[in-house]
């Protein structure tokens, strides 16, 4: 939204037809490194003569700009932006910003040569977009502008006044730190497993989240790391919060940096209100990052689950599995297994398996003790294929729809057999059930009671695949009847929870974040896998004339 608004402002400026004058300006953006800001201030304090052609350079002094007053670039507190303040004698009649990538070939290709300063590690090859520029004010003598970073732009002032004219190209280069990734170091092995962007888990959250859930290390210290695109130098990086206006409002714990990586730690209670990674320059030299010094706020969030939150949700889950069990016996049983780390009563066996972080079933990459390579040991509980969970699952509306769909898709096979074998009474067909997700969200048949059945709370969305055997019989008075439908194949689900849901699932997602560093006193919260291996199990609801 903001980008669109900025673009709108710029288009209005371009369209204006003020009386001609001079100047151009361009800018750019964010800087967290104070040394860099200082370097830029030096640069911009030079006479504005970095035009790209002899004519353009010549027009600058004639514009009447007071070059004795240096331009200033100052960070805008609470943002990842800087503001360029320059002085001109007249307001420009129009101001065009042209992306640096569009500059003419005669312009110097390496602006670092033109503007002094140490740009090692900065993205000199990255160009900004004019939409990121925001002209905040246009005064008679001052232009205030700011933009996102990293950005290289040319300001192209057109028009003429006082005998001078023509376009004046300006180039101002500002760079700053840009964050690349944030990850949790819950197990202290520095494994980049649970991270943003795009590394928080999959499942129903694919492509949706801008945060990671983070549990503390053993002992209660939160450890979060972040990598930047530039060397951090003296930049300070901390966990903190921003208010509703995006302004930094609190800073937690301490931090260290090494080249492009920052390590942030915090030992203490912390509410679940999301944190962000904040960076900035220690302008007052007190060794602390203060909210007024922050020049970069991470676009991604970090939700820390501390011991107090964990204990609260464990208590609630404990109450649920103690009191509940009437309407949702399977779900209650599975929740007990999750909370206490025990085998569900309806399961008949368990096995040790390894789960990898990229498993598509995982909602959040918590609830398992990941090693640095992104794999973790887990339990797999198997429900007997002749047991009640297997029975209720196979006769559910959800699975019946799947199996009926397979049979319907082979309606022609049945008809062909009917036509070609008029004297044959019985026929068995084997058809594949393609691998797919099945979601038990409407077993009740009542719109407002969707997602309320025991199977929904047990499975949610599960995977199934395999094949069916369908027994077809020719009726006495004609017509065909499916006398039996038998399914063979696995039906499985990773038992984990999404923080995005509310109620019990939300609480359970907090409990699972505490595994394996907070769980104590017999409580677990470990994610596990449920599976049924069907073998020629009859699917009674799929009988009849499904095609």
């Amino acid at each position, binding site marked *: 939204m903001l980008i669109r608004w900025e673009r709108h402002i710029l288009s209005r400026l371009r369209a204006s037809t003020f009386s001609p004058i001079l100047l151009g300006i361009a800018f750019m953006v964010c800087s967290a490194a104070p040394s860099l800001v200082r370097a830029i201030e030096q640069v911009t304090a030079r006479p504005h003569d970095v035009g790209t052609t002899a004519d353009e350079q010549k027009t600058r002094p004639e514009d009447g700009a007071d070059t004795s007053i240096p331009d200033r670039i100052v960070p805008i507190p609470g943002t990842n932006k800087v503001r360029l303040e320059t002085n001109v004698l007249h307001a420009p009649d129009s101001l065009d910003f042209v992306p640096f990538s569009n500059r003419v070939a005669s312009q110097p290709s390496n602006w670092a040569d033109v503007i002094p300063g140490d740009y090692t590690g900065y993205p000199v090859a990255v160009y900004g977009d004019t939409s990121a520029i925001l002209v905040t004010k246009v005064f008679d003598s001052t232009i205030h502008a700011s933009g996102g970073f990293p950005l290289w732009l040319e300001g192209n002032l057109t028009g003429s006044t006082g005998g001078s004219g023509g376009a004046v190209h300006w180039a101002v280069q500002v760079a700053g730190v840009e964050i690349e990734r944030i990850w949790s170091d819950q197990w202290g092995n520095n494994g980049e497993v649970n991270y943003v962007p795009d590394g928080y888990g999959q499942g129903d959250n694919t492509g949706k989240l801008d945060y990671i859930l983070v549990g503390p290390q053993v002992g209660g210290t939160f450890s979060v790391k972040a990598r930047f695109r530039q060397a951090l130098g003296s930049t300070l990086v901390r966990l903190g919060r921003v208010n509703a206006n995006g302004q930094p409002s609190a800073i937690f714990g301490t931090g260290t940096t090494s080249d492009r990586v920052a390590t942030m730690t915090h030992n203490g209670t912390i509410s679940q209100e999301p944190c962000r990674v904040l960076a900035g320059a220690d302008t007052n030299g007190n060794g602390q990052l203060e909210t007024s010094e922050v020049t970069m706020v991470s676009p991604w969030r970090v939700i820390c689950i501390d011991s107090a939150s964990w204990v609260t949700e464990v208590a609630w889950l404990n109450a649920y599995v103690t009191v509940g069990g*009437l309407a949702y016996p399977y779900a209650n049983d599975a929740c007990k297994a999750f909370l206490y780390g025990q085998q569900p009563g309806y399961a008949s066996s368990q096995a040790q398996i390894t789960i990898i972080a990229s498993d598509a079933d995982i909602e959040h990459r918590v609830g398992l003790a990941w090693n640095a390579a992104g794999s973790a040991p887990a339990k797999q509980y198997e429900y007997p294929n002749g047991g009640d969970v297997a*029975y209720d699952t196979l006769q559910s509306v959800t699975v019946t729809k799947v199996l009926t769909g397979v049979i319907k898709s082979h309606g022609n096979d049945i008809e062909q057999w009917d036509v070609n074998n008029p004297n044959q009474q019985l026929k068995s067909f084997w058809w594949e059930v393609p691998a797919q997700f099945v979601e038990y969200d409407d077993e009740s048949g009542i719109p407002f009671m969707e997602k309320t059945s025991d199977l929904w709370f047990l499975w949610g969305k599960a995977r199934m695949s395999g094949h069916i055997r369908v027994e077809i019989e020719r009726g006495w008075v004609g017509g065909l009847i499916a006398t039996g439908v038998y399914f063979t194949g696995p039906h499985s689900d990773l038992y984990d929870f999404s923080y995005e849901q509310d109620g019990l699932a939300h609480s359970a997602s907090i409990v699972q974040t505490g595994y394996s560093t907070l769980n104590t006193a017999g409580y677990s919260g470990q994610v596990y896998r449920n599976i049924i291996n069907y073998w020629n199990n009859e699917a009674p609801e799929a009988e009849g004339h499904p095609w």
Partner: protein
Amino acid sequence: MKTKRFILVVFLWLLGPLSLAAGVITAPDAPPTKLEGLVKPDWTLTDLATTIDKQRVKSLTLAASRSDTAPLRNEMVKRMVSLLADSRVKTLAARKERRGQLASVYAAISQGGHYDDLFVADLIRRELVRDAHQTLLEDKDEIEYGQYVDLLSAMTIMKMNAKVLAAKPSAKVSEAADLVDWVSAVLETQDMTESEFSRLPQMRATDPRTVGENRKPMLLLNMLLDTEFITTVHLPGMRQFLKRGGKLDDLYPHDVRKFLEIMPSEVRREFRFALRGVRSLSPVHLQIVARRTPDPLPLGLLPNIDAMMKPGGTDKESGAK
């Protein structure tokens, strides 16, 4: 001819007041009898049931008036809870007697029309579920067990005076054809969204202590539905299973073959409760009823009656086996 008709009209005109005076029928809008004036603090269930029967009390309420203070209301609820808890018995003969008494009290209090009346009425249903469960496990008397099933089947929400659950008068509520329509209509009158209501069962809302203390109509409705669920699916399903020759030992969670053999699909489909996502009887429903654990309750909830009386207390009988 005209004279005969006149006599008939006069007779019918007089019949109503005379019947009321004789206590044969109760006027539909007659105010319910107040418990406070009826029950002495040391009364037993037998005393209450006897009084209700003798005085032909058709409608009994715990709420003396709208201006009742919360402490007084709570005192009435606690008195009833105490009365129910103290009336628990262990022998089959004693349970038979208690069943009749509970039925009498339920008939009156389920028509009381206030939140607390419905709450206590449902506790009575749960006491009957508890007795049915014990009868099933200890006495293995299918006929006696069937008496409970029949009685509880008649105690449906639809027959209660449950208007208080609707936030305002609604034609949809009064004209609902079945329980699903009725619940949907009640929700329409409440601030609670359907989505919020659908999530209630997974919360602690079904704990009577929570429902009693919070006095939220939708929590109470959810509690009523839980009881309705077990009296619609679990208990009658078990009776059908026994009638068809099933034994409790045939119910094994890892092998459903015997259950399926005894209960074919057309029979299983007779037991459904869509408000809990159940379209047919599952073996797990019968396993719950037949559960033999230190906490024998299929509901797992009734011990909280005692907890309401004595915070931190436990069920008197649950640990006695």
